[in-house]
Structures are given as structure tokens and as C-alpha cells.
């Protein structure tokens, strides 16, 4: 057979003697445009990972984890700081809803995203990789009231948008609840200082010791084109029981503030803490570190406890006692001793929070004795100093979705405007307001701008896409576990941060967990499924039976050769991470 015959069409032989021994192609098959048979069309389309969609801050989690796998830690840092000025804080204290939604949870164990974020932040600090910005022409002046996570996040993003930002803080040190509310065994002060100073280096002026409503009011801020109020919720909620304001009875937030600012506290040996939230746990673990015995009294059961699970475990390890279904109704004081008259409770119907309501058991009164009683029954917004004209309801300031209060140029956010009082929500809120202020000052529709840059279904947003609308395009669809092809993943253990021995932990306020080493971080990052984001595994290229996946040089082009793609869908089903989509061809 002459195999050099130029073959551009289908062959018809005259007889067996002309035919080859077997049925083989003698020329190329380019003439056969099999793409014409296609009923469905595959195409590449990055989609949203469930972790990013769940992140109140709007971090590009898959993005920074992939950078870690490439050993590009600085790249990971650059990606994180596009959205979040507080990775060192979040990597330590965030309740990481990203991990709860991680698809890997359904396979073996979720990725330790918080630990990877902490790793990146610590890595950057060790290399002294600070955020720097050249002196650009400053645009409008913006005032931010409150230097907590919401205020500082807003200031950070506004500074990056070239605004001239001044932050006013009532306390002597910046940080808000991050500084006063979170004990340093969870969040060391140097980490917080580092991240605040990174923000300050962008040109943000932080003026401390200026309480809003006292020395400072709206009149004094007339030179500012927009104002962001993020004063938080710092007032401990009263227990409203007889004796609840007596001597030796303290608010949990106040006590934490004193301890965290290094002030002297005087306490007896046996401490009763009333409440079941994170503040109760923080107080209990702090007083244990001061050498006291701590007992938490909580009126519901363990399941209803709002405190984060891991911190409860750590508290119990450190010797904190928790008594469930107990509610103080009276605090009697005799000398320095307090007698808490309590009722035992049982769980009734579900209330509006979806938790079962505690109902007192009549006649179950008993007494609990303690030297001090700390009330940690929630926090409230201090409203009296706020400017008039702000709409308030049920203890919070009402705003539109973008933080607009309705008063011209005045925005509000953070704990002040929400009952979802986490660090991550506050950071996300500050970011959203930064964007809203930018829209406001440029006459843009902030509602529409927000809609364009939602991560998944929202509510979190991507600042990157606000600034670069045509880059890293992503379908808002959130990739589910069923959409992955897990044949290409192997089971592996989640890496865990090491913790100090309990004995050592309770001796002081040193941070109890140690971050990942580079090796461990990369191992953990390798576990990431990278849901919805192509990592160039080339399964599509390898499996395509029609050689229709186009590479340019050695790199996937993410283009399909539709002249030949028959639409078999193998690329779609063999993609481990759901990057390829199929759509029906129009007929």
C-alpha cells in the first residue's frame, strides 16, 4: 500500500487486492468534521467553590491554596490581601464556615483552611512582606469611626482605592473587639499589631483616644465626604435578676477588656460565669489562666450552646466546668461570697432562633456559691452616643444592604448593624461599605455593583472582581460534592496544628497553637479538591477521544476544537473538579 497518498476524503477501493490487510486509516481524518454530530457542547468555566461562597470575608480560598501547592507563598499572600487585611487574625479566630462547607468533608475530612490562612500570614510576616503603597494622589477624605475589624477592613479597602482615610478610636489602642474581646492565647497581640500596622502603612491615619459622641461628633467631621460608623457592640447584656449589678458581679466583656489591656483585676478563687457564648468561654479560660476555678452556668444544653465547638473542648481540657440547664434567678451577697439561687431547666418547644427553649422546672431551686459572678449573656450596641436620625430596631442600626444608613454620606456596619457578630462578618461588612462609599462618591449604583461581584449567591463579595471585572471570570454556581469526580483523589488525613500541653497552656496567655511548617502547609494544600477551578491536571486532554482539547505549547488553552468535538462528554465526566460544563447545542 502506498501510504503517502494524499487522503482528503473517504476511500472506496475497487477490490480486495487494493485493500490493506486490516482496516487502518491510510491518511488523516481531518476531512471528517465529527463536530457536526455534536448534540451537546463542552466548555471550560470556572465555578465557585463552596468554601469561598461560605466565607463572609469573600476570600478566594481555592486561589490561595493553589498558590501554596505551587510553593508560591507570597502569591498566596497577595491573593488573600486582595480581600482581607486580617489573615493572621482570621486564621486564628474565625469560626471558619468555609471548612463546614468544604466538599472534602463528604470525602474524608475538610481542608484546614484556617490553618493555611494563618500559615500564609505568618510566612509573610517572617519575610517582612508588608503591604506597601506608593504615595498616590489622595482622593476624598473618609472618616471611619471605630478601629475594629469592620472599621479597619473598610479603611484598608478605601485606602487601596486611593482615599484619604482617618480612623477614630475611643480606646487608647486600635483593634476594637479584636484587642479587647479576644484573649491573647487565641490571638497574640503582636499578630494584631502587625496587621493593623500593615493597614496604617497604606496611609490610613489612626487617631486613638477619641470617643465618638463625646469629643467627636458629626459636626466635627464636616470635612469628610463620607463617614463609616462601626463602633461595635461592647456593652454586656444585663441578666436582669435581683443582685445582678452587685459588687463583685462583672460584665464578661468588661473583664476581658481589662485582662486583654493588661489592667489589674481582682477576683476571688471560685468564679461563676453565666452564659453560653464565646465570651463565656473566653472569660472562663482567661480566669483559669489567672489561677482561678471557673464554672460556666448555661440555661440550655450542650447542643444549643452558641460557643464554637473546638473552644469548648479546649476549655474543658483546661479544667473549666460547664453546668447545663441551669439558670440563676437571684444573686445574694454575703461578705465577699455570692450565692446564686438557680433553677434547673428543661428544654421545651423551639424558639425563634431554632433552638429549644429552656423552661424552668418548678421547685428545682438550688444554690451555687462563688466568689465572683461574671455575666456573659450576650452583648449589646451602645446607642446613646450615635447621631440622631439613624434608624434603629431591636438594638441594632438599620441600613440598606450596602451599609447606607439613609443619612447622606453616612454608612454603618459591623456588630453595630448585625446580630451575626463574628470577626469574619465584620471584615466582610467593612469591605462592602468601602465599595458602597466608592460607588456613592462616584455616582455609581452600589446595589448593582454588589450584585455583579457576589461570591456564589452571596452575601460575600469579591473586591478583586470589583476592580477587575473582566478577569478570573467565575460562574456563581457553587460546586457540589456530587459534581466532583473523586476517582482522582486519594483519602488523606487532615493536618492538625500542634497545641501546647494543657499544663503549659493554663500557666499564661501565650498562644496555644503553633502554625504549620511549609511542608505541612503544602501537604494540606495538596488535599484541596480545588472545586470549580482548573489546576491543569489535563484529564480532559488525556481522555478526549477526538483530540479536541487544544493545548498551546505545553499549556491547556481551555479551548475546545469544535470542528471535531463530538460532544461525548468524557472531558466533563473525567474533570475531577467540575470545571467543564456541558450545554445543549441549538438545533
Amino acid at each position, binding site marked *: 500500500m502506498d501510504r503517502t497518498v494524499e487522503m482528503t476524503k473517504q476511500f*472506496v477501493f475497487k477490490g*480486495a487486492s487494493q*485493500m490493506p*490487510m*486490516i*482496516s*487502518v486509516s491510510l491518511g488523516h*481524518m481531518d476531512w471528517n468534521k465529527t463536530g457536526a454530530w455534536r448534540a451537546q457542547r463542552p466548555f471550560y468555566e470556572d465555578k465557585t467553590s463552596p468554601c469561598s461562597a461560605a466565607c463572609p470575608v469573600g476570600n478566594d480560598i481555592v486561589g490561595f491554596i493553589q498558590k501554596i501547592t505551587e510553593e508560591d507563598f507570597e502569591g498566596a499572600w497577595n491573593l488573600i490581601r486582595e480581600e482581607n487585611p486580617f489573615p493572621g487574625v482570621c486564621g486564628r479566630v474565625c469560626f471558619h464556615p468555609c471548612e463546614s462547607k468544604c466538599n472534602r468533608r463528604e470525602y474524608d475530612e475538610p481542608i484546614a483552611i484556617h490553618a493555611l490562612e494563618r500559615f500564609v500570614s505568618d510566612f509573610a510576616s517572617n519575610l517582612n512582606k508588608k503591604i506597601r503603597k506608593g504615595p498616590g494622589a489622595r482622593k476624598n477624605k473618609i472618616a471611619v469611626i471605630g478601629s475594629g475589624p469592620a472599621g479597619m477592613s473598610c479603611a484598608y479597602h478605601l485606602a487601596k482605592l486611593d482615599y484619604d482615610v482617618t480612623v477614630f478610636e475611643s480606646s487608647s489602642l486600635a483593634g476594637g473587639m479584636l484587642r479587647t474581646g479576644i484573649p491573647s492565647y487565641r490571638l497574640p497581640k503582636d499578630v494584631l499589631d502587625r496587621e493593623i500596622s500593615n493597614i496604617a502603612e497604606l496611609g490610613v491615619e489612626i487617631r486613638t483616644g477619641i470617643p465618638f459622641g463625646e469629643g467627636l461628633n458629626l459636626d466635627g467631621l464636616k470635612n469628610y465626604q463620607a463617614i463609616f460608623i462601626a463602633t461595635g457592640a461592647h456593652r454586656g447584656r444585663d441578666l436582669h435578676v435581683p443582685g445582678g449589678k452587685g459588687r463583685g458581679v462583672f460584665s464578661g466583656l468588661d473583664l476581658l477588656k481589662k485582662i486583654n489591656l493588661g489592667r489589674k483585676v481582682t477576683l476571688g478563687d471560685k468564679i461563676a460565669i453565666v452564659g453560653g457564648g464565646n465570651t463565656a468561654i473566653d472569660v472562663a479560660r482567661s480566669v483559669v489562666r489567672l489561677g482561678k476555678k471557673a464554672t460556666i452556668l448555661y440555661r440550655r444544653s450542650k447542643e444549643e450552646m452558641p460557643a464554637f465547638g473546638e473552644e469548648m473542648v479546649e476549655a474543658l481540657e483546661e479544667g473549666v466546668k460547664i453546668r447545663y440547664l441551669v439558670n440563676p434567678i437571684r444573686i445574694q451577697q454575703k461578705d465577699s461570697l455570692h450565692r446564686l439561687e438557680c433553677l434547673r431547666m428543661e428544654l421545651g418547644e423551639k424558639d425563634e432562633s431554632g433552638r429549644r427553649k429552656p423552661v424552668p422546672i418548678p421547685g428545682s431551686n438550688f444554690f451555687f456559691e462563688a466568689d465572683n459572678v461574671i455575666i456573659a449573656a450576650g452583648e449589646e450596641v451602645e446607642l446613646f452616643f450615635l447621631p440622631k436620625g439613624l434608624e434603629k430596631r431591636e438594638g441594632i442600626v438599620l441600613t440598606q444592604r450596602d451599609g447606607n444608613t439613609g443619612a447622606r454620606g453616612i454608612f454603618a456596619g459591623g456588630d453595630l448593624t448585625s446580630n451575626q457578630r463574628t470577626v469574619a462578618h465584620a471584615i466582610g461588612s467593612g469591605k462592602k461599605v468601602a465599595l458602597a462609599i466608592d460607588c456613592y462618591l462616584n455616582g455609581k449604583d452600589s446595589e448593582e455593583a454588589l450584585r455583579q461581584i457576589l461570591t456564589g449567591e452571596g452575601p460575600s463579595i469579591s473586591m478583586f472582581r470589583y476592580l477587575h471585572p473582566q478577569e478570573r471570570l467565575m460562574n456563581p454556581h457553587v460546586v457540589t460534592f456530587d459534581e466532583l469526580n473523586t476517582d482522582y483523589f486519594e483519602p488523606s488525613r487532615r493536618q492538625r496544628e500542634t497545641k501546647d500541653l494543657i499544663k503549659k497552656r493554663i500557666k499564661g496567655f501565650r498562644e496555644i497553637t503553633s502554625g504549620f511548617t511549609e511542608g505541612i502547609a503544602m501537604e494540606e494544600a495538596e488535599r484541596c479538591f480545588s472545586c470549580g477551578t482548573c489546576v491543569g491536571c489535563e484529564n480532559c486532554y488525556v481522555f478526549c477521544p477526538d483530540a479536541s482539547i487544544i493545548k498551546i505549547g505545553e499549556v491547556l488553552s481551555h479551548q475546545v476544537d469544535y470542528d471535531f468535538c463530538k460532544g461525548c462528554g468524557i472531558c466533563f465526566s473525567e474533570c475531577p473538579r467540575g470545571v467543564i460544563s456541558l450545554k445543549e447545542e441549538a438545533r
Partner: protein
Amino acid sequence: MKKVITGNQAVAYGVILSRVDVISAYPITPQTTIVEELSELTASGRMKTVFLKVESEHSAMAALIGASTGGVRCFTATSSHGLAYMHEMLHWASGARLPIVLVNVNRAIAPPWNIWSDQSDSLSQRDTGWVQLYCEHNQEVLDTVLQAYRIAESVKLPVMVVLDAYVLSHTSEPVEIPTAEEVDAFLPPYCPEYTIDTQEPMAFSTIATPDHFLEFRYKIQKAMEQVPEIAKKVNDEFRSRFNRGYGAIERYGKEEADILLMTSGTVTGTSRIVVEKLNRKGYDVCGLKIKRFRPFPVEEICKEIKGAKKVAIIDRNLSAGVGGIFAQELRASLYSREKRPQIFGFVSGLGGRDITPELIEEAIQYTVDHPQPEEEILWLGLKK
């Protein structure tokens, strides 16, 4: 060098000496010790072979189809259900004209469950386009593997070498093992006509429309028709090099006789003794061993029938509804002859029951005593 080895070991020696490049197989009794031996030789590095472990016989043959298309010499071994499971791929191997050699150890097909000798497994595959060669003893097994590659690679058709379960597979006999140099001189490396070449890419086994399909099948038939001549040439060369050989058929006992006893596989070994004994007693009988079943040696048989009036043929297999398959093929072969002997088609030894000298004698006696068979199927040793 002479060694006392089993039939399965003889297969393994044949494979080593053939310098097979790729082996892929799945274990099944009574074949297992063949691939066990080969996998150990491969693992220890004594044999330079790629051994592909697979999850089924279907995959074993599929893997070899890929490897053989890649232009290398391939081997697999199986039995019974394993061979049946390969069925689709057996067609593929012959259709793609791949000179793969397969050793099948004859075993009955269940149910009832049975692991003993019976030709139904290989004969069920008679229409798959494979050359089939049946062996009588362990020496023949080794030698047939070597010859099989020469035949297969000459006509570009796959070859199945068949031996009886246990009677050969697990029974030791003295076997002369040729040296590697001797075999290398007899069996040159495989040179494929078509092969995978990244410099000159081709699609294999592409579609052939009704315009061409018939012609491809015609070519396979033409290749089959070349087998008798090529196999004879190969055997002649083998005989000149090794001083022994095997025809497609072999007559033994008298030069010519009224009664011809036809057998295949190890039954032939027993028949040789019976024929010799009966000749001494004055019976006019001679024996005919059939080694090659596909293509069926029509011309060779017609030549050897000479003046025989009756043919007694013993089948260790059954095509239900027809009878013994060898008998069926023989009848078809003789139909065009002017003088046709009477065919006495005996069916015996299914599922590994021994076909003893007494049973064979009984078959010959019946043939002597009857001018023609009373029934189409003569059950030998049936317990009614």
C-alpha cells in the same frame, strides 16, 4: 537438555524461549500454574517481559490486542470460562490480524461445576478466526508453542495451542528443552506489517462500511487457506533443526486399513497402544491423530483415508443437538468425495472421565461388528 516437567511447565518454557514481550493473563484452574510460573520468572527478572495483571480474561485479551498492535510478541493462557469470557476479544484479535498465541488448557464448561478435561471450551471458539492446534504430549506442547509463533506471524492470524487438563497440564513427562540459541535461529523477532508509530499516526480497526467488510473477511479466509502450506514448511524446518515434528494429522499403525480410528489430544496416546495391540490380534485398523482443528485438515485427511471403509472418531466434546464436533467437521470434509466411508461418531470422556484402552477397544469392536452406525451419536462408556 531433558527435563521432567508438566505440560503447563512445558508451555512456560515455550513462552520463555519464544522471547515473548508482553504477557497478560488472569488465573483459572487448570491453567493457573502456567502464568504463575511466567509471573515469577518476570518478577525475578529472569524473563524480560512486561506482565500485565488484569481483572478478567476479557481484559487480558484486550490488553494483548493493544500490545500486539504496538508490534510486540504477546502471550496469554486460559481455560474454560476464561476462554468463553474472552470470546468477543478473540474475534477482535483475528479481525485485526494480530499474531497472538494463546494456550488453552481444555476444561469443561459449567454447570455442573467441573474442572476436568473436555474440549467444549476451545471448540466453542472454532468460528472466531483462530488457528487451533491440539497436543498429545508435553514435548509437543513446548514445540507447538514455538511453531505457533512462526505460523501466526507468517499468516497474521492468532493461534490457540490446546492441551488436556491434568492429563497433560499437571502430569510430568520427560521433555527435551531446546537452547535459546537454537530457538532464536528458528524463530526470528516479530516484524509487524502495521504498528503504532507516533511519527506516522494511524487509526486501527476503523470502521469498514458494507463496501469493504466482505473483502476484509475474504482476506482472513485466504490467510487461513495459507496455513496448511505454511504450517508444513514451519514443521519441516523445525524437524530439520530439532529432529522431531508434527503434521496437521499423523497416521500410525498400519499403512492402510479398512477401519480408521481418529482421535485428538491425549486420547491419541492411549489409542496408539490399543491399535498396536489389535493389529497384533489381526484387526485391520489404523490410527489417525488430528492435531490441527482450524483450519480443518480436509486435504490431508482425504489423502490418508485411502481405502478405509469405516472411520471411528472419538470426540471428547459435545455440540448438543448434533454430537461430536470433530465428527461433524469430518462428515462435512468428506461429503464431496465420491467414495465416502461410514462415520462412527463416538462421544466419550466428557468432564474429564478417563477414555481407557478398554473403551477405545469397545469403540473399534463396535465399528468392526456393524456395517453402519445404529445411531448418529454413539455414546462410549455412558451409564444408562
